[in-house]
């Protein structure tokens, strides 16, 4: 059977989600305590218990976390691709469930960069181990991470396609419109394009308000087989398609600064799902920076390459728009603890279930969670759908 004929479509579903954020940007709990709370809450959401879990995903060490939980899983997954790690976990967990490797998988995230700083809590070292071409060939030039690489991509996009700062700002503005509907969002006050442009330049052409937050945050999801999912507490969010692609680590090695590996992962995930951009009711597109989200709009096929600026500026991404994007308020206004991809999933699942409260989009059947990791380096696309889409 050729690769294209092998598919995960409908084999597994997300059946439980949990997350914890605060409008203050800080959480009281941290570390393992917070991770455990998320796992238990996601299992409770699904109507499962720890005893059901035989697969563990954790981007630092699934083995150490399984030991802490007292589990003896047959599937451990520690892939760390930065912000897209949790979309990769969706893909790999669904594959493992489909292949009979395990039955119930939990993936967890907790990070408290903001309170670590304000409370002067010691943080584990975050340096990149081993041979590191970025240290040798990029960091000596004062490249600020993660922002610098994104600024280079934005500068090139502006040069090639005439994209403007106003168009990038339109993404931040529409995302804030969603955040005003979310009482848990960090920032809820209305934002204008003029506000974004008046915020201090960081690495040009990016302004402060083109950049994501730094907040505490945590979350977890639980996945199981489609058969078992139907017996559980909440409506399943089926994995219709999933795909990942990476085309560089350091920005110097990115083949084309204006086209991400999402141009591979997106079409692959859509092909597996049997849907296209026109079928998407909700886009959860990783917004570490406004340019990040703009590139997703193009690379996933919501508009043509180079037209992301006019597309975003035309509106349609906010409440009532034709393509609701980042309905929780995104990394730009809701939360961003560093690896934001978990929150793409928790929001997508809630919208598919109709649990979106004031920000609920009518009739969400197909939702896309598109994670971006490292420095536009690793794109992972998960297409999720309701029972009706199977």
């Amino acid at each position, binding site marked *: 059977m050729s690769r294209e004929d092998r598919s995960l479509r409908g084999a597994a579903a997300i059946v439980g989600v949990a997350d914890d954020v605060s409008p203050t940007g800080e959480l009281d709990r941290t570390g393992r305590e917070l991770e455990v709370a998320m796992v238990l809450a996601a299992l409770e959401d699904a109507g499962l218990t720890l005893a059901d879990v035989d697969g563990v995903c954790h981007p630092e060490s699934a083995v150490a976390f399984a030991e802490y939980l007292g589990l003896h899983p047959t599937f451990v997954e520690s892939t760390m691709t930065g912000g897209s790690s949790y979309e990769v976990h969706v893909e790999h967990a669904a594959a493992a469930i489909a292949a009979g490797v395990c039955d119930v998988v939990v993936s967890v995230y907790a990070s408290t*960069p903001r309170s*670590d700083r304000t409370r002067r809590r010691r943080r584990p070292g975050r340096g990149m181990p081993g041979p590191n071409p970025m*240290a040798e060939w990029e960091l000596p*030039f004062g490249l600020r991470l*993660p922002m610098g690489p994104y600024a280079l991509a934005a500068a090139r996009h502006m040069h090639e396609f005439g994209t403007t700062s106003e168009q990038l700002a339109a993404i931040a503005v529409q995302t804030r419109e969603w955040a005003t509907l979310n009482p848990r969002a960090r920032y809820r006050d209305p934002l204008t394009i003029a506000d974004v442009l008046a915020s201090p330049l960081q690495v040009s052409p990016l302004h402060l308000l083109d950049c994501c937050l730094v907040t505490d945050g945590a979350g977890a999801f639980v996945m199981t087989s489609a058969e078992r999912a139907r017996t559980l507490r909440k409506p399943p969010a089926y994995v219709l398609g999933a795909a990942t692609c990476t085309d560089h680590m350091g920005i110097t090695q990115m083949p084309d600064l204006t086209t991400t590996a999402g141009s591979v992962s997106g079409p692959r995930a859509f092909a597996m799902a049997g849907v296209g951009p026109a079928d998407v009711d909700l886009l959860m597109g990783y917004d570490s920076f406004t340019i990040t989200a703009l590139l997703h709009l193009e690379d996933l096929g919501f508009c043509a390459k180079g037209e992301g600026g006019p597309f975003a500026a035309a509106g349609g991404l906010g409440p009532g728009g034709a393509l609701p994007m980042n309905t929780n308020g995104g990394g730009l206004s809701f939360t961003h603890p560093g690896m934001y991809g978990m929150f793409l999933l928790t929001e997508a699942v809630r919208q598919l279930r109709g649990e979106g409260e004031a920000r609920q989009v009518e009739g969400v059947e197909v939702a896309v969670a598109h994670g971006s990791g490292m420095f536009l380096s690793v794109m992972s696309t998960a297409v999720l759908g309701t029972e009706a889409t199977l």
Partner: protein
Amino acid sequence: MSADPVRNDPVSTNATSTNAASADAADPEAAARTRFEPPMGAESGPFWEATREGRLLVQWCTACDRGLFYPRTLCPHCGAPGPLEWREASGRAIVHAAVVEHRPELAGAAFAQGKPFCIALVDLEEGVRMMTNVVGCPPGDVTIGMAVTVTWEPLSDGRQLALFGPAGPAGPAREDADPS
């Protein structure tokens, strides 16, 4: 609009993050340096040795006749393990993308005399792309497509870092040399 002093801190914005200042944090001599000095990779000895004489070398794949950067033990274009050889580059390049860091203190107190500076990706005539700082003109004057030539900044161990400055009137690279 909300002020948020923690936002955009280079250490805490991303779990994968590091930067010049944080990478040097444990090094007591670092404060005296003007910039984070590059470690030397296992494959890049000839590159760095040549910089001591102000020569810019590019690794070349003789199997597919293309330059490659950064140095490796196989060609990332064609997968051939070699033979790879070192060739001296002209030092002429075209700016592919350029940005200005408006918070230079984040790169270290002494970096760029504390003034906004330009970070660029430049395409060498030999067809490889490098990151650099474009110096010798105001950082905001650096434009995509601009012709630049190499200029050297000494490091503390005698190696030199390849920076670039606006090309002089003699023999600048041309915009149409841009391999993209």
